[in-house]
């Protein structure tokens, strides 16, 4: 995995609360067996009309959205289904971070395992970002700081372990695999051996 250290990118603003993972990627796009190519399903029912033509009013279809890397989201983004495809679709489309007031638990966990950083910020910071769509922000994960379009700095908190993994570009799985002895000890201690 590529390390995530400093990201400077333009924002796309999705001014909606409780965006569920069925909206991020509808279930009919979940029939594949790989992690790739899911960007075409990203927000499919929002982005495209029934005939497949893009809806010009949807934020991802506006000209300033091209090449954007940061999604500005409403409260409780990513609620609902556990589908990691939602994160894979965002990453496939070039997004590396989301900034919003809050995120659903499973989505946040999935995101952090795919080099995608969800950043929770206070409502006033969110309002400021939502009002300046297309502006660039800089996210410094080492410093745990976002530089807003007006130059102000905002600190954010992040799971310290996920931060370490992202900064070093290592997978959380590496840590778990390193626990092999502790797991074997647990299995024998609790009589959880193979049946």
């Amino acid at each position, binding site marked *: 995995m590529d390390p995530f250290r400093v990201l400077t990118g333009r924002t796309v603003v999705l001014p909606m609360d409780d965006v569920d993972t069925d909206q991020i990627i509808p279930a009919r796009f979940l029939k594949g067996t790989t992690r790739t190519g899911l960007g075409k399903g990203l927000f499919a*029912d929002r982005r495209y009309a029934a005939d497949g033509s893009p809806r010009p009013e949807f934020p991802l279809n506006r000209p300033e959205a091209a090449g954007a890397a940061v999604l500005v989201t409403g409260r409780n983004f990513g609620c609902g289904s556990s589908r*990691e495809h939602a994160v894979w679709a965002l990453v496939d489309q070039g997004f590396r971070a989301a900034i919003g007031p809050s995120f659903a638990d499973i989505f946040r966990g999935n995101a952090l395992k795919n080099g995608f950083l969800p950043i929770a910020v206070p409502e006033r910071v969110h309002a400021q970002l939502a009002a300046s769509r297309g502006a660039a922000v800089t996210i410094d994960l080492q410093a745990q700081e976002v530089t807003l379009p007006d130059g102000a700095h905002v600190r954010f908190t992040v799971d310290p372990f996920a931060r370490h993994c992202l900064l070093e570009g290592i997978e959380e799985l590496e840590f778990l695999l390193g626990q092999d002895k502790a797991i074997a000890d647990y299995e024998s201690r609790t009589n959880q051996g193979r049946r």
Partner: protein
Amino acid sequence: MTVARPRTLFQKVWDGHVVSPATADTPAVLFIDLHLIHEVTSPQAFALLRERGLRVRRPDRTVATMDHSTPTTPLAAGARAVIQDPQAAAQVRALEVNCAEFGIPLYPLGHERQGIVHVISPELGLTRPGMTIVCGDSHTSTHGAFGALAFGIGTSEVGYVLATQCLLAWPPKTLAITVRGRLARGVTAKDLVLAVIGRIGVGGATGHVIEYRGEAVRALSMEERMTVCNMSIEAGGRAGMVAPDDTTIEYLKGRPFAPQGAEWDAAVAQWRSLATDEGATFDQEVVLDAADIEPMITWGTNPGASIPIRGKVPEPAGDASIARALAYMDLAPGEQLLGRRVDVAFIGSCTNGRLSDLRAAASVFAGRHVADGVRALVVPGSQQVKKQAEAEGLDRVFREAGAEWREPGCSMCIAMNGDRLEPGRYAVSTSNRNFEGRQGPGGRTLLASPLTAAAAAVTGRVTDARELMR
């Protein structure tokens, strides 16, 4: 003398599964007793194992079935299901190959134990009190009904659990939801959980494990408790739990994978010790009175948008998300749903696809007929549910009423298997999500209980099922 600190049900289950405790910098390593897998969220996890040359650490703690992308088209007796969709067929084939290669037991299409993953695991007695259970599906919270700590995970974590039988997790917070008194006649577990989500909101339990408590919860059957715990995730909860009691033990006794003999007695003693201790505290508490709960239905595009069946949809009053939901649902602010025409009734899913749900629906269908222009689908949650329902003659009640009696699967809850709500149509559904497009692009979902869905099927309108109950 040391006095043990009072602990919650959640804390006891968590403590019993810590392989390595959390530190300031690293989450806890948590042992997983049971890993359920299905065709949709596992292929990329097996790909990870192959890329890394890893084995499945505990195939004996892993169980697979097929449910999400499989067709539920009715079959002639003895006929085999044919998957028309080549992508779905490839996904199902991949699960067969993966299970064979890694030695994982599989209940495939056509097997007498196949069904929705959250229906078959309790049926088999694989789900038991005090366990940690995960699955690449958010409705894994269902298994919390047994006093297990059960939660949905993404595909990366499916791979981690396959490889190590463990997960990394920070200790969540706890939320007690106490329901005092008893539910009134015609008010079901589904109404209870829709009322809870309406009260605390779709993000109300984020970061928390819920414990459902109180007289109304204790009075629920295991199937009803599963309905409640199933929808914990719809309030954002990491998991939902109910302490094991006589109801739990009665349900499990004699199940295929339940312990037997002396092992059973030891297990029962351990299960009985799991209940939250007197004096244990929760991070948050919510109290509801069962007497205040009416049959519920949702009007909007998330499960928190629930109102009593005779209630009115809200006015936006400047709230853009309410305005947007009303527009999607094509509902007028302040209107009553009661009497509104519906196109589809869907009875099934991991929320309400068990035998007691089908019995409730059949009690409304009996002696009545599906209204003109309405499509009614009844989809048993598993082959066992189907078999038991047929043994009771419920299938005949549904068919004689003009409803479709289908094969087990997730069906129209998720619309990735051929069962789909058409754009602009209204469905009263016993499933768990009314998200935009969830049941099919442009489809409009009203979540409700099996009684309410069956009442809508036979009247063609949103109906208070209590009016039809004899």
